[in-house]
């Protein structure tokens, strides 16, 4: 583990409060609550869409375990990446670079939460869901954070799988298995991840360059990144309509996926055709924010449709 005392932006803040130890809020920050909220939401959708029933108390426990497992991944990621986090504008205020929490505390926190979340989910709900949660955490830490992130521009393409598992875990919590429908939900998030992160990487390119993380704009250039954003968006948009075409989502979802997909594609093409870097960055910021809204709305549409059908029947 790199010595965080050598990180640039973090040094000053570290000296101020390191002796007081971390606040409870620092440990909550370690769990990346914003990422966690999207994980909970997509897992809930998988849980609601799955055929069969699960006692509400067990469903709540399943969601709690998935949320805590995602939080544990976040803490372990911050432990491993503390050296580069301190040098990047976006991440310099995280608890380890600021000196509020030591790297060892974050590691212990992450490991304890990982073990508890996986075993609780396995024991109380079922072991397929527990195993998928363990796979998600392991994939995020060992495959994405430790192996791919600092080695290849394909880091977020392959690593994106970790973020795509939650609806599959939710589905498995109810059915005890994996099915075509849950794989499709997985694929939607998997295909969504590259344009989402590359939009961010376009306007945060210097940050990644400074710390040597080979994000696509750093390694292959901005033009290639813009091209790849268009390619992955063109794959994502029709894929997101598939649940309606396959019959496990209805017309409301289909319409939502088509309309929002058209906006997504328009922004991706906007990035591709923009004449100068400032314009590209401007649209990339829009695409990054819109992509979060897009994914949220797709899953919300699935959820609303299923709840409405249950109320009417």
């Amino acid at each position, binding site marked *: 583990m790199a010595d965080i005392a050598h990180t640039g932006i973090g040094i000053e803040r570290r000296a*101020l*409060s390191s*002796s*007081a*130890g971390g606040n409870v809020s620092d440990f909550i920050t370690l769990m990346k609550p914003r990422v966690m909220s999207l994980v909970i939401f997509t897992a809930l959708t998988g849980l609601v869409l799955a055929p069969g029933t699960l*006692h509400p108390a*067990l469903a709540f*426990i399943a969601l709690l375990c998935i949320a805590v497992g995602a939080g544990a991944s976040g803490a372990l990621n911050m432990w491993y990446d503390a050296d580069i986090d301190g040098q990047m504008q976006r991440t310099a205020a995280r608890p380890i670079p600021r000196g509020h929490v030591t790297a060892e505390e974050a590691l212990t926190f992450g490991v304890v939460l990982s073990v508890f979340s996986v075993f*609780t989910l396995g024991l*109380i709900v079922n072991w397929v869901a527990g195993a998928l949660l363990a796979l998600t955490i392991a994939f995020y830490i060992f495959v994405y954070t430790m192996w791919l992130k600092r080695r290849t521009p394909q880091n977020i393409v392959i690593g994106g799988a970790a973020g795509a598992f939650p609806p599959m875990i939710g589905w498995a919590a109810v059915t005890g298995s994996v099915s075509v429908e849950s794989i499709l939900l997985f694929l939607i998030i998997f295909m969504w991840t590259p344009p989402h992160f590359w939009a961010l990487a376009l306007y945060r390119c210097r940050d990644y360059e400074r710390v040597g993380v080979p994000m696509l704009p750093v390694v292959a250039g901005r033009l290639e990144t813009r091209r790849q954003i268009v390619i992955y968006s063109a794959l994502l948009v029709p894929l997101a309509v598939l649940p309606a075409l396959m019959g496990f989502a209805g017309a409301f979802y289909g319409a939502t996926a088509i309309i929002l997909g058209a906006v997504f594609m328009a922004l991706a093409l906007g990035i591709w055709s923009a004449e100068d870097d400032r314009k590209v960055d401007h649209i990339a910021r829009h695409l990054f924010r819109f992509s979060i809204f897009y994914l949220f709305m797709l899953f919300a549409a699935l959820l609303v449709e299923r709840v409405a059908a249950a109320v009417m029947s």
Partner: protein
Amino acid sequence: MNEPEDEAERRRRQRMRSLAIGLALAALAILFYVATIVRLGGNVMNRPL
């Protein structure tokens, strides 16, 4: 931050962390209790004496 203030802040944060751990453990105990009742239902009383 001078030393006495730093020490007071350190103690406050330690107390808050201990409280959070205590609450988390209590929540875990309740969670396992509820899960046991839900899983076993009436059978929770059905055991050889």
